[in-house]
């Protein structure tokens, strides 16, 4: 297994800023837990656990981007489209905490930064984009796929800019910020395109087979009307 870290390590951002973001992450996640309970009530633990296991399993699957270069899905936008922003943020943060403790991916003191960027900022941006885009795009599997593609690309780039903000506040080395911002945005634009293509196909598949499971389509669901025709 050739896994390399994509998560912020210890020592990149200084102590006070890491602590501030850890507190922010705890408060925001407490709010997510309350909202997620409203979505799932006592189903929360088993359902969110299975969705988190799904995100984790998907992150372990590598696919070929170009010969010799493989990537894996981050799954934030995919999760918010399928299970909603609250459960999605909870699942992504659980994955991040377990990856930090069990796989040494991401620094223990940077856990607040990683959760803020990927579980909170990424999913919030992804969900807002999905809500706005679905106003204009058709509520069909194809429309949902286009939504997932656009929302994934933009939310991955926005999450990467979260790191730039944290670096600007507490970076341990003076770097020109436009350079950091541009590099992060460029790399994550490529990651986001791969992410978006896969997320789009995935949600289109789910929307065709079990549209009732897609959280983002829930608001548009019409009450079921049964037409009883005369037997032919």
């Amino acid at each position: 297994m050739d896994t390399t870290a994509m998560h912020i390590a210890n020592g990149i951002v200084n102590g006070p800023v890491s602590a501030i973001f850890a507190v922010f992450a705890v408060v925001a996640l407490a709010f997510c837990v309350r909202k997620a309970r409203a979505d799932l009530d006592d189903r929360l633990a088993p359902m969110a656990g299975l969705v988190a296991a799904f995100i984790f399993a998907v992150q372990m699957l590598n696919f070929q981007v170009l010969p010799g270069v493989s990537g894996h899905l981050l799954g934030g936008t995919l999760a918010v489209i399928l299970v909603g922003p609250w459960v999605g943020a909870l699942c992504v943060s659980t994955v991040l905490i377990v990856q930090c403790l069990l796989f040494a991916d991401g620094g223990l003191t940077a856990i607040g930064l990683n959760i803020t960027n990927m579980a909170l900022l990424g999913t919030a941006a992804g969900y807002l984009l999905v809500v706005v885009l679905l106003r204009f795009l058709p509520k069909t599997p194809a429309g949902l796929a286009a939504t997932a593609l656009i929302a994934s690309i933009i939310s991955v780039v926005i999450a990467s800019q979260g790191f730039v903000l944290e670096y600007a506040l507490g970076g341990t080395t003076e770097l020109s910020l436009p350079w950091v911002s541009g590099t992060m945005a460029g790399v994550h634009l490529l990651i986001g395109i791969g992410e978006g293509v896969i997320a789009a196909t995935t949600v289109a598949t789910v929307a065709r087979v079990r549209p009732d499971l897609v959280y983002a389509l829930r608001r548009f669901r019409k009450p079921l009307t049964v037409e009883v025709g005369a037997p032919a």
Partner: protein
Amino acid sequence: MGAGHAHPLHLLRESPVHRLAPEVKIAAVLFFTIIVVITPRTEFWAFGGYLVLLVAVAVAARVPALWLAKRATIELPFVLLAVALPFFGQGERITWLGMSLSVDGLHGAWNIFAKGTLGVLASLLLAATTTMRDLILGLDRLRCPAVFTQIATFMLRYLDVLADDARRMRIARLARGYDPRFLWQVKAFAVSVGSLFLRAYERGERVYLAMVARGYQGRLPRPADDRAPTSQWLAAAALPAATAGIALAAALG
């Protein structure tokens, strides 16, 4: 479920470190990492002292150096970032071997390299000596909110099931002539990610119903509350205490 409870980084050994209760190990690693991160980067020898402490723990835990070194490559992207810093850093510059390097960038590179490596080594030692189940038990005893420990329990319990599902779907794809080389050939992969989600979600619904049938009311029974004895807390406190000692000596000296 027979073999599914070890994780890839767990190293089954018999050692005093393995026998420590998980909550004391998590606390020790957390305090160690915090002290390392707040140590000023110019206290060079303090970081050497920290490394000696970790080596002592690794020896006590009977974790081979090569095993640690191989898994520490996870932080390679950050080492690359560290290598780039002296070239792109700002401020005062020095010339070394004909290259113009930023002093602040050199310090920054050292900072990321030293603190990142020490953090990864400490986390690896924790993961090597603690099983998944114990880690979650430890988090629970450290008063981590039950929602998280429950979600994490379910996640880890079903991770292997889903990974096996994914593996079977991959074999099925390969058996049908699937051989993607480029990103735009990825459709079959993405479709099976979709069906993996359906399988996971429907399994979640079945698990939930099975739990309700067995009397689940939104709360899992807590495992017997046998807290770690004070002696274990004291033994594990040796690591952060020694670290703090080194940090103080460096700050005063």
